[in-house]
């Protein structure tokens, strides 16, 4: 490759964001438009990635390798495989929608907002492309700065508490990981190269120490129970765009971290710690779902449902078999789309009513029928109705779970039932019942809003009906990953390759 595609993906939004500084502050229209165009170009830039991607190899593709800090043997090393490519596309898409949804919602410090969004996009792209642990850490932490500002400046009434909590939780976890990275460097032949660090014979004790150091960072980000408490606050108080990015991309990075670093570098510890991880996942699934039933705040309910859904993701990951891991990656994409869509929808209704209280609403289906239709589909996808993407992901994860620990999978399945309960009940309370007077005269969705929600609908149905489109990207990479974890020998052929559903 002569064109460094991945570097372009990372630095195009950063340079674009900084170029917004050149626009006078009061020309908010120009700033918005420029931000949208930059994010759209970024989305288009992911197309050559998908087209040129070779699905038949597990090797890293689109490699870029340049020395960065030679004194410490740190390289600017980029590359993607079947696990990371989908996240790049998801990130680019989510940012476009977030910029669109902030069109009218953000009216103060407009310039700063869109710069923060674009810088955040660049850093997130970097996280998914980095193959040097140090470089990964740099992008991982850099993300905190714009996110801290987005929640803290443009968020809801309790935003400062939420954003400081978010920042400190993440920072403590990340710093412990940093110590782990240095320990790994010391024992892994003085390199930060992820590919070289994997497959080295670290002692089981060292692996356990490192596993927990990495766990500190990744589990906070996922978030796994019991370090999830920043999430409801942050998701609730963030502006709509912030919630969408948090739910859509940011919390996926924790699970991605497990996939990229913990599993291949620390296979023995990963297997030893399988049970605790599965149990924590199941607790998150059930606990998150039960808490959802008690919520009175729309955004908070969706936030807690994320805890439950991410429990499924980690369950699939630590099932450590092909179906579980593939299901979990797919479910990350699904959750990003569905929960992102739910937050987008809630943001739209919040702009009209300025209330997040569930009890404030009622009978919305008769005053905003189009909106009710969109929301219905997102609800069903969140519940995991067959035909939507949510079903495929959770089904695969539970299959993987049954293979690994049947009893835990049974308990986890109750999360599906609880999920249907709280989501449908939410739908009933907001959209049905008698029409409240405050619901009268609300404006219908405008063209911009329909344009935001439509791609979500298409993707939800497309993945639900033809999951192989996405799964085919990850087969080879996931089986290679599992080979690394289990040692050579135990390779399961994918059963799912023929599984497509036709309505």
């Amino acid at each position, binding site marked *: 490759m002569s064109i460094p595609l991945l570097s372009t993906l990372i630095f195009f939004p950063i340079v674009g964001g900084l170029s917004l500084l050149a626009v006078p*502050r009061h020309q908010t229209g120009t700033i918005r438009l420029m931000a949208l165009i930059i994010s759209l170009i970024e989305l288009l830039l992911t197309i050559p990635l998908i087209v040129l991607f070779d699905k038949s190899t597990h090797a890293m593709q689109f490699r870029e390798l340049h*020395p*960065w*800090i*030679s*004194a*410490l043997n740190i390289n600017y090393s980029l590359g993607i495989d079947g696990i990371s490519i989908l996240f790049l596309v998801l990130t680019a898409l989510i940012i476009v929608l977030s910029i669109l949804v902030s069109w009218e919602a953000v009216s103060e*410090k407009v310039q*700063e907002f869109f710069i923060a969004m674009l810088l955040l996009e660049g850093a997130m792209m970097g996280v998914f492309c980095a193959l040097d642990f*140090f470089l990964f*850490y*740099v*992008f991982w*932490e*850099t993300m*905190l*700065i714009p996110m*801290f*500002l987005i929640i*803290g*400046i443009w968020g809801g009434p309790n*935003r*400062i508490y939420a954003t*400081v909590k978010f*920042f*400190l939780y993440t*920072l*403590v976890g990340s*710093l*412990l990981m*940093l*110590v782990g990275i*240095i*320990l790994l*460097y*010391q024992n892994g032949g003085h390199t930060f190269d992820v590919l070289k660090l994997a497959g080295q014979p670290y002692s089981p004790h060292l692996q356990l120490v490192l596993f927990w150091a990495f766990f500190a960072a990744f589990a906070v980000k996922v978030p796994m129970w019991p370090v999830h408490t920043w999430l409801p606050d942050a998701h609730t108080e963030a502006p709509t765009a912030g919630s969408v990015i948090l739910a859509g991309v940011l919390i996926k990075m924790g699970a991605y971290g497990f996939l990229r670093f913990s599993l291949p570098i620390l296979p023995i510890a990963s297997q030893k710690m399988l049970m605790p991880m599965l149990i924590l996942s199941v607790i998150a699934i059930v606990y998150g779902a039960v808490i959802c039933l008690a919520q009175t705040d729309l955004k908070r309910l969706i936030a807690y449902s994320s805890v439950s859904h991410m429990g499924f993701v980690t369950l699939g990951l630590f099932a450590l078999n092909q179906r579980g891991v593939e299901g979990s990656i797919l479910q990350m994409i699904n959750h990003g789309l569905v929960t992102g869509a739910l937050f987008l929808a809630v943001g739209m209704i919040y702009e009209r009513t300025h209330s997040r209280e569930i009890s404030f609403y009622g009978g919305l289906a008769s005053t905003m029928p189009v909106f009710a239709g969109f929301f219905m589909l997102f609800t069903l996808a969140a519940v995991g109705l067959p035909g939507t993407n949510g079903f495929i992901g959770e089904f695969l994860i539970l299959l993987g779970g049954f293979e690994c620990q049947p009893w835990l999978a049974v308990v986890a399945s109750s999360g599906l039932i609880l999920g249907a309960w709280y989501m449908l009940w939410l739908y009933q309370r907001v959209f049905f019942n008698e029409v409240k007077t405050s619901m009268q005269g609300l404006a219908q969705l405008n063209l911009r809003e329909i344009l935001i929600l439509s791609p979500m609908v298409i993707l939800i149905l497309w993945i639900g009906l033809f999951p192989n489109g996405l799964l085919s990207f990850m087969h080879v990479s996931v089986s290679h990953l599992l080979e690394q974890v289990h040692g050579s020998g135990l390779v399961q052929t994918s059963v799912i390759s023929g599984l497509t559903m036709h309505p």
Partner: protein
Amino acid sequence: MIVPAAIDWSVIVPILPELLLVGVAIVLIGLDLFFPDQRQLLPWLTIVGSLCALIMVLGARPAVGFGGMFLLDGYAVVFKTICLATVIMTALMSEQFRNLIRMRQGEYYSLLMLSLVGMLLIASAGDLMVLYLGLELMALPIYALVGLHKQGRWTSEAAVKYFLTGGFASALLLFGMSLLYGLTGTTDISQIAEAISVRQLAGNSAMLAALGLCLVGCCFKVAVAPFHFWTPDVYEGAPTVITAFMSVAPKAAGFALFGRIFFFGLPHLHDHWGPILAVLALLTMAVGNITALCQRNLKRMLAYSSVAHAGYAVLGLLAGTAEGMAATMTYLVIYLFMNLGAFAILMLLTSADGSGDTLDDCKGLATRHPLAAAMMLVFLFSLTGIPPTGGFIGKFYLLKAAFMAGYTLTVVGAVLFSAISAYFYLRVIRYMYMNDPVQQTGLVASSGMYATLVLCLLGVLGTGIFPGSLLNWTVALLAGL
């Protein structure tokens, strides 16, 4: 009759920068006395003089002068660069404070120069005598500078406090040095190290007493807990521009002193001073960061933050390895940019009488002056140690050096205190960005102030994004390449 031997003038070549600066200091006084109308030239003369000295230092070849008493090695070059750069930026910022120091501009700049000469001497000292000479030459002008603004509420107290504790620390250090001389029979630092190794003095109890006295003296100078008590009061009482200067240059010189004695002079006693410093470093971070949490005065908060940063910088020193020393030196270079930057913004906020430096005063700065707020944001994130700023690279290098030397628990502690520090740095950002402004007045900045801010911003981001050359520079200079 004794005929004096012809003087070999080539011996002065290594100390030419110092001589130049002494000359500049004298010219500054003369200019102030005899040409009072030309006072606006004073800062520029200071800057040009320091800049020339900086170029001479950077271009100099490694040299030894005065029979090993004066070393112009890579170690000296790095520390001299830090001190010279600090003085240049301080002089640039001083224009903003012209009203405050109107009456004594000549003294102000010449004292700054003389103190600078002392720092350069410390960096180059190959002998305990030169070291002590440099230390006193550095400290005396600063005592006066702290008390320069006589009308200030706290300045006199600050000056006296600084003078007393500084004098006490110097006395302890001198006592330690005299013991070292008594035990080894020499004041030459490299010969001391040799004598300790050859005569196996490492376990000698008098030697341990000497070690302890030197340690306490050095800790006073760089404000390592529990010898930091003077710092907050002095930093708060001094004029802000002097506080900015003091928090960087004399601190760097203090680390040069630390390194000359411990890293070069007492490497064979590392088993003793390494663990002690590890405990002190943790204590310093704890005191600095936790006390900073409850400060509402920004200047005092930055004072405690500078105490905490001394704790981080010690991490490299205590490793006792070349990598550790290089890490400390790198950190001080980065610290120069981020700390001066933060102080520069603080100076913008404060009015001429020194009020306006509380947290409430920076409320809504993002609305009043978006650019200043954005710069402060970068400096504060750098002080916290978040990439892609230089503060992260510096901290990472320190942690790595200490970790590789086996101080695992110290590193874990440092990391946790660093997370605590995030809270108070973030609080400033919260006030700037997430509160509405109380005052609507704009901020006035002189062109020198802008220049300093831009230099600091470039420094913080440059060392964060392209740290390779800085790291290579310190490592190579230290290795004597």
